[in-house]
């Protein structure tokens, strides 16, 4: 186990989590007003209507695939009678399709962003950096999937997944991760960069996916007294009961 391995697979993940969590809390506290999808649908909707659902739904499937592949141990899927080969084939097919859809989706979105005048001029440097990292993570991820399909059958569920799970119990299994292929290393690193910049980009909108909409009453009443609740009362103006 080299120093590099220790730094990349033992230290970096925790730095990334600290930045992700700390950054998100900071952003939520100090930049609620900037917490938005920054939709550009008003400017252009023809391409968006194809690209955006393709990208987002593809990404949701990809995320589910990651959760299953990383969190569920191989022994568990084996226990329910799913052979490693069968698992690999379904992961390859589903993951490949979803990853491809996501990549095509983001391709359409980037093309749209570049060619539609108003959308391009509403693109910030922050957005551009985010797109680079996001697309790189997608490409690297799809590459690992395709490499798995073509050549040497590397079973990441014996290397990456144990390492990923070991992170949560604060006993990083660095050796396992060090044994994974280069493609996996690259994809994981880019992924960590993506999560580290996440709170500081427009990607934060994912953290406020409006699932509560399914459970709240349609009409929201809010008292004016409580209306200012999202903003703390200024010093000297607190009411007697919230002092």
């Amino acid at each position, binding site marked *: 186990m080299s120093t590099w391995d220790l730094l990349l697979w033992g230290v970096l993940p925790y730095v990334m989590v600290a930045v992700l969590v700390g950054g998100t809390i900071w952003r939520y506290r100090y930049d*609620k007003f900037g917490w*938005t999808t920054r939709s550009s649908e008003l*400017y252009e909707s023809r391409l968006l209507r194809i690209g955006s659902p393709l990208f987002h739904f593809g990404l949701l499937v990809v995320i589910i695939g990651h959760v299953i592949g990383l969190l569920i141990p191989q022994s568990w899927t084996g226990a329910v009678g799913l052979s490693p080969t069968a698992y690999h084939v379904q992961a390859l097919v589903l993951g490949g399709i979803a990853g491809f859809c996501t990549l095509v989706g983001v391709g359409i979105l980037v093309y749209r962003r570049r060619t539609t005048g*108003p959308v*391009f001029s509403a693109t910030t440097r922050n957005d551009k950096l985010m797109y680079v990292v996001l697309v790189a993570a997608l490409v690297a991820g799809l590459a690992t999937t395709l490499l798995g399909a073509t050549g040497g059958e590397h079973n990441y569920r014996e290397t990456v997944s144990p390492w990923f799970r070991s992170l949560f119990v604060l006993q990083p299994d660095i050796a396992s991760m060090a044994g994974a292929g280069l493609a996996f290393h690259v994809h994981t690193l880019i992924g960590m960069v993506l999560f580290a910049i996440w709170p500081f980009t427009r990607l934060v909108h994912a953290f406020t996916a409006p699932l509560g909409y399914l459970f709240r009453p349609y009409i929201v009443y809010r008292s*004016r007294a409580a209306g200012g609740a999202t903003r703390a*009362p*200024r*010093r000297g103006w607190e009411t007697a009961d919230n002092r």
Partner: protein
Amino acid sequence: MRVMAQMGMVMNLDKCIGCHTCSVTCKQAWTNRSGVEYVWFNNVETRPGLGYPRRYQDQERWRGGWVRNRRGRLQLKAGGRFRKLLTIFANPVLPHIRDYYEPWTYDYETLTDAPLGDDFPVAQPKSLLSGEPLAVEWSANWDDDLGGAPEHGPHDPVVERIRAESEEKVKFDYERAFMFYLPRICEHCLNPSCVASCPSGAMYKRAEDGIVLVDQDRCRGWRMCVTGCPYKKVYFNHRTGKAEKCTFCYPRVEVGLPTVCSETCVGRLRYLGLFLYDADRVTAAASVADERNLYAAQLDLLLDPDDPEVIAAARRDGIAEDWLDHARRSPVYRLAKEYRVALPLHPEFRTMPMVWYIPPLSPVVDRLVETGHDGESAPNLFGAIDALRIPVEYLAELFTAGDPGPVTDVLRKLAAMRSFMRDVTLGRELDESVPAAVGMDAEQIMEMYRLLALAKYDERYVIPTAYEGEAHQLEEIGCSLDVEGGPGMGGVGPFGEASGRPVPVSVETFHALRVRQTSEGVADPGVPGARVNLLNWDGKGRPPGLFPPPREAPAEPGDLTDRGSPPERTAGTPTLEDRR
């Protein structure tokens, strides 16, 4: 019965001259920022016409408002909660910016920069979205005063609906054309479909006064509210990525001032006041089977503020005593419920809108006069209303879901008032049968005339002034003291000039005006970081920041005059510096 209070507005369309003052002042107050260039919280459209955004009333296209499903329950026309979440990545029925209009400015610089030549330089229109040159093709009131009506008029969704019944009803040839103006703001509905459409729960109806607002800190820009509102009065700020809408000028209303649009209305056609309504019955009223009954159902929700039972219930539900007093003096309640001359806009959207309209009578009177009749005699007027069905049917499509009955009733009341009041003014013998013909008595007619024709400022705008016990939280009052000696006190924030919250413009204006009115010298707040407000600048002296700092002139050899420190600026003594 659960009594709630609602701020409401009535507009008397007979008085609207289409001057757009309300729109312009509203825009200056609320939407003169980048990102909302195309947004008019208040707009005035010519009917018949396409409206703003174009054809917004066509809910088969835009899918706003509510529909009653087969089980008799209300559901959002654009689909329920699951459908909303499934289409959240690309809202299929969001208007494009061109359905409003692409905002533009002019390349004024060319006028001064252009090299000498044979042709006059022109200021080209340029898009405010992309910066590219743009052919101006549409705006918020492109078809003002029936401009282009032969082309656009037939595409008015209201006209389409009437023509579906009879091809002959609406004509756009010069001799038979008619028009009137329709000023529109957010309806602050009792059953707001925009609020119901918001996935984040950022939109809410204020419990105290029913004003519908967007919490800018909770809005995530999912854009479903824009689709949900059938009046298309929620807008997407494309710079901030948040929804914005008419606020009923709540910072003004909270301190008892009328909205900007009402305050500046040249025709004084707007009335502001309170409604008391029964919140428990709103959903049932909005779900009545026949859409022609929606107007009656909505009227039925409004509670009589003089009824002891209502007063007792209102007290129980925590409505303050001065609010009840204001509700009893409410001009909007009288116009909508007592005299029944104000009608809601498009009740068929089932949102229970709270901005009401007195339909215009003028076309009828003018037509009678043109044909050589006495345009203000009661029998002539009554007869004409029935005969001239074009406006009535059009108005009915706007205000009563197509039922001409209530519209005719209103027009007959207005006609009776004209006719009766003419007799009063000319000192003729009063004909009691005229008010009786429209189900009113002479006294009521006189009262209605007073309210519609003579009412002064404080009768037109009956706004409860203070929110008892919470005055310290009012937006306009409670924000100047962020930090001891902070921005509001003429100091800076805790971490230097750029820290702390910006001073609200109202506070800054207040201080600037006070300084200007009380000081002998230059109206200069003298606060570091204070903005230069040209509206408050009295032309005396030169507030710092009005011009960039002067460049140091290179010292000329032999110039022995000691320039020293600049002289103290005093009023009325402009120096060379001041004229630079």
